[in-house]
């Protein structure tokens, strides 16, 4: 169990959070910049002092202000990967990697140097200095360095934020490997929903220092608080399903979602694997009758479970497609013309190409 609770006041800002989640797994702290994500993980690492805090990792209390316990950062054994990597410029990659390892208690060295070097693909970089590395390589080294300090908990503070799209795609698979290889609790700070979609097992929505919502990513993707954070255009239901069939020729995979099946463009899809997809609400078309003669491959039938007006022009419709919810965003005019109402039977149409999906090699936690 991971328990993070903190109260911290600043001039025009108050952080007030309490999070409790099962370990291991990745907890994503998601929110806009300035919502308190970084403040919270600096408190967790012990680099920042909160008015009140309780930090507990798998039964080990690292800070408990009610009992006057507050371990120094160097005694917490919390690995921290900073946004700007913070590699030591006067040491080569090898020495950077071993810095934390040498300081970890001898009896606690579960994570080996060779394994980390292999998993993160660092073999060719060992003799290089940090300034001779690309941004993506630097973050991989920083990850390895944090891992080798044999941490109880790993904190990742927007580790991909300083990278361009190509470098991000280079590092993301390593983060997945890390999640799957080491049974470590990880706190992942991000303001990119697609990273959260790929990595997180538990999502905490933060806004202005408060927890707006927390839970599994499917539930969070439907939560109204997310709309104010990512904007209505980026809202879309996250669905988890298993791959029923995959066609390597077309790159299309049939994913079982709720009572139906949707086709998604997926690389490396293997039948039986678990997959998480996001269907953006603005890409969903609703029909009141079974459609015919359309190019759209994905037609699910369901029932409207909720209608919410997010602004003057559009409605957000929750459609229950047999155990899973798909979000649709339609104009108010269309909503009125089709006389959409709760409990109504409805057909949901989605273009396969507009679905963001990601296959998981290991079962989701």
């Amino acid at each position, binding site marked *: 169990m991971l328990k993070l609770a903190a109260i911290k006041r600043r001039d025009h800002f108050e952080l007030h959070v309490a999070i409790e989640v099962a370990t291991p797994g990745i907890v994503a702290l998601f929110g806009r910049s300035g919502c308190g994500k970084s403040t919270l993980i600096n408190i967790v690492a012990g*680099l920042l002092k909160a008015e009140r805090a309780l930090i507990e990792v798998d039964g080990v209390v690292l800070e408990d202000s009610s009992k006057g316990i507050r371990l*120094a950062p*160097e005694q917490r054994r919390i*690995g921290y990967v900073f946004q700007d990597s913070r590699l*030591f*410029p006067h040491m080569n990659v090898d020495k950077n990697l071993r*810095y934390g390892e040498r300081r970890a208690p001898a009896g606690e060295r579960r994570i080996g140097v060779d394994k980390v070097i292999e998993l993160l693909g660092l073999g060719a970089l060992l003799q290089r*200095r940090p300034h001779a590395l690309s941004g993506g390589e630097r973050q991989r080294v920083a990850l390895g360095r944090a891992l080798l300090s044999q941490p109880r908990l790993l904190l990742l503070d927007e580790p991909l934020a300083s990278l361009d799209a190509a470098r991000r795609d280079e590092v993301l698979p390593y983060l997945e490997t890390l999640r799957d290889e080491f049974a470590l609790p990880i706190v992942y700070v991000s303001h990119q929903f697609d990273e959260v979609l790929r990595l997180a097992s538990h999502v905490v929505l933060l806004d202005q220092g408060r927890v707006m919502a927390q839970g599994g990513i499917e539930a969070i993707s439907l939560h109204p608080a997310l709309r104010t954070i990512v904007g209505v255009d980026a809202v879309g239901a996250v669905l988890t399903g298993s791959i029923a069939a995959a066609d390597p020729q077309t790159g299309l995979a049939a994913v079982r979602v709720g009572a139906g099946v949707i086709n998604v463009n997926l690389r490396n899809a293997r039948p039986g694997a678990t997959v998480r997809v996001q269907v953006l609400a603005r890409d969903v078309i609703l029909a009141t009758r079974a459609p015919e003669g359309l190019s759209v491959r994905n037609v699910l039938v369901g029932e409207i479970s909720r209608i919410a007006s997010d602004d003057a022009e559009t409605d957000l419709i929750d459609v229950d497609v047999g155990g899973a919810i798909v979000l649709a965003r339609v104009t108010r005019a269309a909503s009125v013309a089709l006389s959409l109402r709760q409990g109504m039977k409805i057909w949901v149409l989605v273009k396969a190409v507009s679905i963001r999906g990601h296959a998981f090699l290991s079962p989701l936690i």
Partner: protein
Amino acid sequence: MSVALRSVLASVPCAIFVAWWLARSRSHGRLLLDAVVHLPLVLPPVVIGYLLLVIFGMRGWLGSWLYGTFGIQLIFTRAGAALATAVMTFPLVVRAIRISLEGADPGLEEAARTLGAGPWDRFFTITLPLMLPGVLAGAIIAFAAGLGEFGAVITFVSNIPGETRTLPLALYTALQTPGGDAMAARLAAISFTLGLGGLLVSELIARRMRRAMGR
């Protein structure tokens, strides 16, 4: 030469500590210490020499204690000359170290903390190596400047041949002696070369180290 070298050896470790404190501390004492450290730059060197006389002279409160307890005499000795030079060049060393320290990211020390390094460990493995270019540059500048220290030295330890006669004192003596012009010119040339050389070498070292660290 020996005077300047000794003065550097004495001032650098103190300067590292003072510079580190000045760069990282946020206490109120910082401003005062900062001002005191820089005093030798603005006071006439004779004043510093006089203060040293008052403190370390045979009747000075520290001087008499040192002599009485350890038999150490600073006044009119080579060690005294080194002390006077060290005090005068101290601000230069502190400045150089502090600049290199302020350029180093305090985030690196935070990173070291999360990796389990305690305060002394951090200082020796992260902070000190990062300020090394400044330390070296400061030491070389201090050495070059120390060779030229005149006022404080002559006031504190006088001008004794073979004991406290430093290069500028010898130069001054040569100028006062009839027919000493050639000697004076030679000494001036040595002084010029050492000064210029010191500045160049310190700049080169600083550059090379900066490049090694990718900054």
